[in-house]
């Protein structure tokens, strides 16, 4: 016996055809268009918001409706006021009231599947970035042999640019430059890097846990990084750079790039997609997909979605970060490393004090779903 028409299926059919009417304004019932259960309110509302940004191809809409929000958290939410005879299960909701966080989570599986699809269709393997070695030593490399270490969020774009110019790390008696900066920014960089390379908690939870633990972790611990290199090559070959503007001179280049121009919200989008990829693929592929495929797309989208934020330590944690930063600064100065720049530049800047704006993160995700990049 065919299932009875319901208002929920009517709304789902309307959205499937590109409609944008909110649930509470919808009244027409329809019979189910598939044998599957009616998608949850979170997916239907996500589709409605996607439709508001423009039309989508039907096969992409159906693929979206076949997904479920991943991991933990509520899902399969019934629509308030729809035909619902059950006395159990999640409470029905008005989809308009769902948080951007829930909608972003609902989008994450489809976004991860889009990235995974690029693995299968990629025509040729990328050139190997890390194992590349020069056929001959460049003159600059002989004059400025280096290793650049520190927070990878700061150092990786620079290392990539140097390598693009043929300036590979290493060489005879290379100098190890430990690139530092205000600890609140370095800590944010540690979290940002993990959003593109691993699985990581939301910023506010990561920050709370760091404070609980009393440590930001190895990527934001400059004395530890410097000590590790000093043990290997000797202290006289380890130099601390607190002012990135001095780095080009030290490395013998005209200029160097700053961190990747992605916002806190782009990091959040990468983070939620990374949660799905962590189950769907291996870590190496996950990193490649997020860093090499997703990051450039997000960079393109940034100017289209206003009010980007940078990740920053919340004001209430700044005192604790200040204490940590002073300890790091004192440890580096006392250890006697050569210093480039004022050591007080390691103290927190307070330049940003917020986490990602969830509404903007959702807007970026919708643009990705719509294929705007």
């Amino acid at each position, binding site marked *: 016996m065919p299932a009875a028409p319901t208002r929920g299926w009517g709304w789902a059919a309307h959205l499937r055809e590109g409609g944008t009417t909110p649930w509470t304004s919808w009244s027409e019932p329809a019979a189910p268009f598939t044998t*599957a*259960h009616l998608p949850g309110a979170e997916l239907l509302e996500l589709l409605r918001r996607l439709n508001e940004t423009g039309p989508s191809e039907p096969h992409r809409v159906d693929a979206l409706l076949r997904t479920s929000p991943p991991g933990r958290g509520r899902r*399969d939410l019934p629509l308030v006021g729809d035909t619902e005879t*059950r006395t159990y299960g999640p*409470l029905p909701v008005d989809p308009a009231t769902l948080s951007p966080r829930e909608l972003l989570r609902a989008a994450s599986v489809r976004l991860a599947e889009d990235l995974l699809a690029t693995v299968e269709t990629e025509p040729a393997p990328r050139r190997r970035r890390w194992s590349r070695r020069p056929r001959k030593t460049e003159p600059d490399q002989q004059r400025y042999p280096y290793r650049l270490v520190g927070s990878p969020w700061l150092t990786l774009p620079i290392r990539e640019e140097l390598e693009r110019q043929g300036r590979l790390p290493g060489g005879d008696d290379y100098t190890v430059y430990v690139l530092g900066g205000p600890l609140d920014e370095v800590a944010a960089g540690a979290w940002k890097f993990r959003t593109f390379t691993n699985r990581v908690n939301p910023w506010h939870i990561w920050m709370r846990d760091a404070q609980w633990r009393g440590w930001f972790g190895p990527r934001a611990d400059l004395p530890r990084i410097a000590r590790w290199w000093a043990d290997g090559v000797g202290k006289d070959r380890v130099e601390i750079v607190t002012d990135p503007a001095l780095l080009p001179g030290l490395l013998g280049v005209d200029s160097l790039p700053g961190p990747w121009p992605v916002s806190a919200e782009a990091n959040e989008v990468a983070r939620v997609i990374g949660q799905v990829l*962590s189950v769907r693929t291996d870590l190496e592929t996950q990193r490649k997909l997020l860093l090499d495929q997703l990051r450039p797309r997000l960079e393109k989208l940034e100017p289209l979605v206003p009010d980007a934020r940078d990740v920053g330590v919340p004001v209430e944690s700044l005192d604790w970060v200040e204490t940590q930063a002073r300890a790091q600064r004192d440890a580096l100065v006392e250890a006697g490393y050569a210093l480039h720049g004022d050591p007080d530049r390691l103290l927190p800047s307070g330049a940003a004090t917020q986490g990602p704006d969830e509404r903007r993160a959702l807007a970026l995700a919708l643009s990705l779903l719509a294929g705007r990049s």
Partner: protein
Amino acid sequence: METGRRVLLHVGTPKTGTSYLQDVLFHNRESLAGQGVHYFADRFDAHFLAALDLMDLPWGGIEEEATGAWDALTEKVRAVENGTVIISHEILASASWQQAKHALDSLGDSEIHIMLSARDLARQIPAEWQENVKHRSVVTYADFLDEIRDPAREGRIGSWFWGVQELPDILDRWTQGIAPERVHLITVPPPGSPSTLLWERFSTAFGLDDLTIDFEGIDRGNPSLGVPEAALLREINLAVVPVLEPADYRPFVREFLAHRTLAKRRDSARLALSPSILPWVESLSESWVKALSGRGYDVVGGLEELLVPEDLADKPFIDPDTISSREILDAGVASIDALLQEAIRLRKSEARLEDEVGELRAELEHTRSLVPKQRAREGLERRWWGRAVLKVYRLIRR
């Protein structure tokens, strides 16, 4: 058109003896396969990994080993032409409608039976709090109860709890298109029942009664903690969770401390339902039993066993959030004792291994020293004059 392949898909719920069942199936998988019952698992947690994969569920880093596990498992299932295949993991209970549909579709033309083992909420609620604490949580019992009573279920605890415990909803999600007579609800017997009764019910429901099964060395599964032990573990979490990675927490805290040490203390008070929420739980349980009765499921045990036991209100309730430090101290001393014993054992083991390494090194050196002599002797024995030299050498040595 169904084949001769029957799949028993056991989808939950946690804390209903599932670990014991899975342990029996895993340890007997080869002999069971010879008897026509397949439990495809190359490691004890194979179906857990498959469930993580199916549900896109990260789990403290273990998910990295889960990639493709569901598809790999179901490929093996579909390759079976005749016989019974069992898939079992309790976290499958939390699958969404779409994930459950995908799982059912991926089993191909099998005759699918949904198996759900269930226990009354009066025992499940305290047990789930303990499970949270055994999984690094520092949530108090009171906060846990508040979370699960939040009707919006917006928190991680509430959404997970109802996802794996709300029996009518779990069965709705997992029985899409499956006839009621192929849905088997196995109830956990009430407290005081014979200890073998639950296994007998599993055995009946899963069709294992007439099969040869070896129970030697099977772990009894996932034991519960007493109130002071659970309170202590929560305190330990407050101290160690920030500094212990999940990969270290699992063997040292959950396995060694919780399961192998604290759970062995059987004389301490067991955690019960807070009296303040008893009426709510009673009413909820009744509504579930009402929703489930008349559906035509095969109930192994009885739906009435899912109601809150009548005598529960008369039993003492000891609150783990306010238990005396003295009682926690007793559990703490027992933990220190066990940790010291373990440290001594590990030190002895380390010393023994060092001795073994020393002996092996000496043997290696000796062998190396023999190699030139051996080669020289073999070289001499291949030549007539060499053999003569050796003869003279041996005469002199004599």
